[in-house]
């Protein structure tokens, strides 16, 4: 949080919670969706979109107040924002930096783009995707999603 103080002024500091930085530009809303944050939970959420960044050109930043993300939540971010860094903040101090790692599978988060996939029928199962080289793959029909994974988020 202290590496670029002039830019950070765009979004106020938070007391307790999570700061997700270096999100691929334009993906902030999908990051919130994948975390299941819709804005009506009563928690403070700040979003900076297309903030100039030395590393990414432009990046998005999301700050979630009063909520510390779990490793599992952090890992699913990797599908949308492989460069993201996650800082847990307590009393205005970064107490933990989490690395984003690609999970092996993602359950219940994405809908399969194959309309003929059984997971899109009215059946009592959650979608399940295995994570492959540069995308995810439906465990039911084998469909591979590489681009625009954010478009297939099941959560809103």
């Amino acid at each position, binding site marked *: 949080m202290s590496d670029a103080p002039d830019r950070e002024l765009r979004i106020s500091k938070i007391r307790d919670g999570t700061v997700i930085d270096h999100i691929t530009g334009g993906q902030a809303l999908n990051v919130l969706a994948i975390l299941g944050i819709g804005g009506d939970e009563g928690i403070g959420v700040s979003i900076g979109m297309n903030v100039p960044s030395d590393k990414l050109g432009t990046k998005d930043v999301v700050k979630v107040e009063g909520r510390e993300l779990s490793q599992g939540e952090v890992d699913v971010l990797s599908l949308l924002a492989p460069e993201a860094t996650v800082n847990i903040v307590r009393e205005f101090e970064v107490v933990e930096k989490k690395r984003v790692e690609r999970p092996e599978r993602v359950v219940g988060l994405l809908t399969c783009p194959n309309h003929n996939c*059984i*997971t899109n*029928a009215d*059946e009592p199962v959650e979608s399940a995707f295995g994570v*492959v080289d540069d995308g995810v793959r439906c465990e039911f*029909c*084998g*469909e591979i999603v590489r681009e625009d994974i954010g478009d297939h988020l099941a959560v809103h």
Partner: protein
Amino acid sequence: MRHDHLLSAGQLTREDIEAVLDRAADLADDPGAVGGRHADRLLALCFFEPSTRTKMSFDTAMKRIGGDTVDMGSVESSSVKKGESLADTVRVIEGYADGIVLRHPSEGAAKLASQFVDVPVINAGDGAGQHPSQTLLDLYTMRERAGLDDLTVGIMGDLKYGRTVHSLASALTNFDARMHFVSPESLRLPRGVRFDLHDAGAQLREHTDLDEVLAELDVLYVTRIQRERFPDENEYQQVAGQYQIDAGTLERARDDLTVMHPLPRVDEIAPDVDATDHAAYFAQAHNGVPVRMALLDELLGDGDAGAAAATDGGDSR
């Protein structure tokens, strides 16, 4: 083979395949070899889309190993029509039968079913997905005619929606096969299938013209290009003719080329091919019975009894 279900060809190792084919060969010679082990066993035939011959083939195989079948009947006459989920349907049928053969129009249906029941589920075709029991009989036929190693196999037709193609290609990665895929641009192999083939280190090439590879092939596996896959009739007419073979076409092939087809065919193989030595598709269809007998014996068999009853070379557990 030690699996609870047969959902896709990708789960089969070379040892699994050879065990079923060896057993099938034994049963083809001596259908009585299974004994009475399946006398009280019932197999449920759940066909959510019509397929007379696959259903009859399973029905025959089950009866030939001493068991019996119960048939869900057509979807129109069942509670499925009223909107019952597949998960509910199979959970009810599980109470009636010792195994379920499932044909369904959606990809992944067999996998889903397998998550809700304890009896073995055999995928008899799920949409454009997989059809692994067909693949076992295809491999049986190939092995009889040409062996399974050091093969050059051409697979032609609708490679995008052809589930028999997806299963066959996947299974062939267990063997030393060079695969040539011949199709119109719009019906190429789907990304997921190509991913698996590359992942398995398969040697494959894709073509739009059969003549590029015909002369090299040991086996040519032909599938039907379905008219309904094309948005307009003109587009269909343009491609369909290019993927039809007749006796004249095969003069450019090797004398020992084997021509296969999962059937039914429409006009992709002309009747004048039937009388040539190339034609293997009717024998291929007949092989479905011993192969499915072996498969059912394996999946429904009760472990040790199965091993004890298996004859030489047919068991790898």
